[in-house]
């Protein structure tokens, strides 16, 4: 008996270690993790990583192509594009994390209520989430921005609303499955309250699928933020954002196409990296799936 209780935490630790090893063990997973890590470091250490002040104007050297001094060139005001991209990483990751975080909070709360709250509540919430999914994201965002104004909080609210159904579905389905699982029934029979059930028995089982969904949603959020900023309805200048840079580059696309090309690079790199991270994470957390398909 004592042997078994001592072995359990060790097995759990080994399991986590195995997940990490599976994540870094595939070439795509390892590269994706590295790229994501590079973006996170760029965001955290932007002032030290960026070669120039992202807002320093240098009219003499404006619209210069890539060179030794400016690796990705300069924009229409002579600002260093690489430095602006590095600082834009802060904006992109901030929106991506707060946006998905808010969506997770809203979706999880709805999912828990639907899963534990009975049939009528469940049907109503499913209908609500289906309805949210039916709203066309970009047009919906433009409509909201027109009334509420373009700002970072507005952007986060839009992302939270439109991304919440994904988390709702995962949490609800998982809770419905777990409702009938033996260990939940056992906990229930020992008098555990619903809130205690949700917090201590269900949440830990949700972490895996939710992590995967977050990794998959981050590219989508980056796309939404840069798309709205490209239309001038997302992040407002002078705050650097990849979408703003794209919008400026688009204006000068004939004179200086390198601006738009450079501004698009971090979007391409980050969306691909996060997608692969999500894929590998899913396979790593559920090895059976990786073998089967």
């Amino acid at each position, binding site marked *: 008996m004592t042997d078994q209780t001592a072995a359990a935490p060790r097995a759990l630790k080994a399991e986590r270690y195995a997940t990490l090893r599976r994540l870094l063990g595939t070439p*795509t997973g390892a590269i994706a993790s590295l790229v994501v890590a590079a973006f996170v470091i760029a965001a955290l250490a932007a002032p030290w990583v960026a070669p120039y002040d992202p807002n320093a104007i240098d009219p003499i050297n404006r619209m210069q192509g890539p060179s030794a001094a400016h690796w990705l060139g300069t924009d229409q005001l002579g600002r260093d594009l690489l430095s602006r991209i590095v600082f834009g990483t802060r904006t992109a990751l901030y929106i991506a994390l707060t946006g998905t975080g808010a969506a997770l909070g809203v979706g999880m709360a709805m999912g828990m209520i639907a899963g534990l709250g009975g049939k009528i509540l469940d049907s109503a919430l499913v*209908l*609500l989430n*289906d*309805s*949210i*999914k*039916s*709203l*066309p*994201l*970009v*047009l*919906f965002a*433009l*409509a*909201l*921005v*027109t*009334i*509420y104004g373009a700002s970072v909080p507005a952007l986060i609210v839009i992302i939270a609303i439109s991304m919440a159904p994904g988390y709702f579905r995962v949490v609800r389905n998982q809770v419905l499955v777990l409702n009938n699982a033996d260990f939940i029934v056992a906990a229930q029979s020992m008098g555990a309250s619903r809130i205690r059930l949700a917090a201590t028995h269900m949440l830990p089982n949700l972490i895996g699928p939710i992590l995967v969904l977050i990794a*998959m949603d981050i*590219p*989508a959020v*980056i*796309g939404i933020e*840069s*798309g709205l900023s*490209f*239309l001038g*309805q997302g992040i407002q200048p002078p705050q650097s954002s990849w979408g703003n840079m*794209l919008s400026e*580059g*688009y204006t000068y*696309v*004939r004179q200086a*196409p390198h601006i*738009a*090309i450079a501004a*698009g690079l971090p*979007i*391409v790199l980050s*969306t*691909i990296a*996060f*997608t*692969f991270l999500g*894929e590998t994470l899913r396979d790593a957390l559920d090895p059976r799936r990786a073998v089967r*398909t």
Partner: protein
Amino acid sequence: MTTYLLRRFALGLCVLIVSMLLLFVLIYAVPGDPASIALGPRASEAQKAFFREQMGLDQPLAMQAASFLWNLLHGDFGTDILSQRPVADLVFAALPRTVTLAVVGVIWAAAIGTPLGIWAALRPNTFIDWLIGVISTSVVALPAFLMAIYALILFAVMLNWFPAIGAGEPGDLLDQLHHLALPAFAIGVAWVGYIARLVRVSMLETLAQPHVRTYRSFGVSDLRIALRYVLPIAVVPVISVLGVGIGNLLSGAVLVEVVFSRPGLGSLAYDAVLSRNFPVLLGAVVVTTGLYVLANFLADALIAYLDPRLAEKG
């Protein structure tokens, strides 16, 4: 089958009503006078009064929601602040262009993505399967508008193969197709990956079923099994995903239209944002939502036709 379709239809109608109510709540929750905020400084008092009346801002909340809903479901989205034309006219004039763009985008994506998915499924766990997997996963999350900008730079600005702006001369089909090429390409890129992955997984699942083994034991060739017997079954989940994906697709089309200055729902909405023409935006959102609900219903109907077992299950 009829009960199934009726139920799906009723559900679609519920979804449409709830999403309109959601819009109402979000508009109503704005602090200040909704009419002034929604219509902006350019609107006249008469227009504001009409908007208030249209939304029933002088009535009790429940009545307001009801009249808002009633007007929208009748296709009455109010009038354009600038041109004084009914919003419904503007939106329905722009809609076919956007739908054409989206449909052409998906068709070329399906034409490339489906064979890629079949190829990968027939050679599972080989290098080619891995390569197709890596390519599909790479493109799947790329934003369409970014692909549009890159395609514009490469093919229109640098190589000058395709025009950069507009939709072509009316009546000149060849010119219109020439203008459609780059936007449709940009929209389809992500879908090539998406469809290839879906077809692969779906094919693998179907290939593992017992009836496929029977065909094989009768000496039917692998390719014939794949195309004649497996693909029609494997394509069912792809259709349902396409139905759900139409929202994404239209969102992509909206941004791509702005990049290429193509007339359509996207350009209409973008101009409406710049001139704070809220009724036009609301109309665009409502019509697109309706389109999404309709597309989902059609996908459900098509699936029920292709695979009646699903309809019986409900």
